[in-house]
């Protein structure tokens, strides 16, 4: 799973199979793509209200729950006022 190496110590966004979106700093991973995030927050999206950020702290996510891991461009991410963003939550995975 060499492809996760570049994300260590970076701020990343995690999309899970149940549709949850979590941002945090990737502190580690293993060959099953289990991931450890520090300073993690869940971003809750809805159409009626702006994005809500819920602090989660230190999180270990099982690899089989992961859909996508993206590297955040901090400058772009911080420029966005999450409170103004209205969007549908990401749908859960359906096989």
């Amino acid at each position, binding site marked *: 799973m060499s492809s996760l190496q570049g994300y260590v110590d970076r701020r990343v966004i995690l999309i*899970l199979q*149940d549709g949850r979106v979590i941002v945090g700093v990737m*502190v*580690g*991973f*293993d060959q099953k793509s*289990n*991931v*450890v995030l*520090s300073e993690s927050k869940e971003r809750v999206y809805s159409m009626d209200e702006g994005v809500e950020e819920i602090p*989660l*702290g*230190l*999180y*270990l*996510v*099982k690899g*089989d*729950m992961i859909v996508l891991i993206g590297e955040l461009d901090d400058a772009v991410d911080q420029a966005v006022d999450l409170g103004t963003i209205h969007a549908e939550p990401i749908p859960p995975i359906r096989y």
Partner: protein
Amino acid sequence: MLPLSLLNAAQNKPMLVELKNGETFNGHLVNCDNFMNITLREVYQTNTEGDRFWKLKECYIRGSTIKYLRVPDTLLDAVKEEQNRARDAGRGARGAFVSGNRGRGAPARGGRGGRGGPMRGGRGRGRGA
């Protein structure tokens, strides 16, 4: 840092475990293995809807059913420090003992060398006889 090093360091620490079906378990970690099978003690269980609760003295959770674990923030620094100590100790002993994720390659190599040594010796004696 390997996820399993973090989990190992979480023994006796409180944690929240959510299963793939949405049930959650709050308790102290008693034990874990490399499959992330875990046992918790003094557990509060909630159902998927979050409206029913159970108290369990102890429970076992199969690793493959876990969605995520939430552990105390302080564990991160504890594991990092422990790894630094182990690395320094390893350097001191000229790599004889290394643990933690930085050493993942090192002990394997050491192990193989160790196993190779006596085996070669054994074969040598066999031919001699």
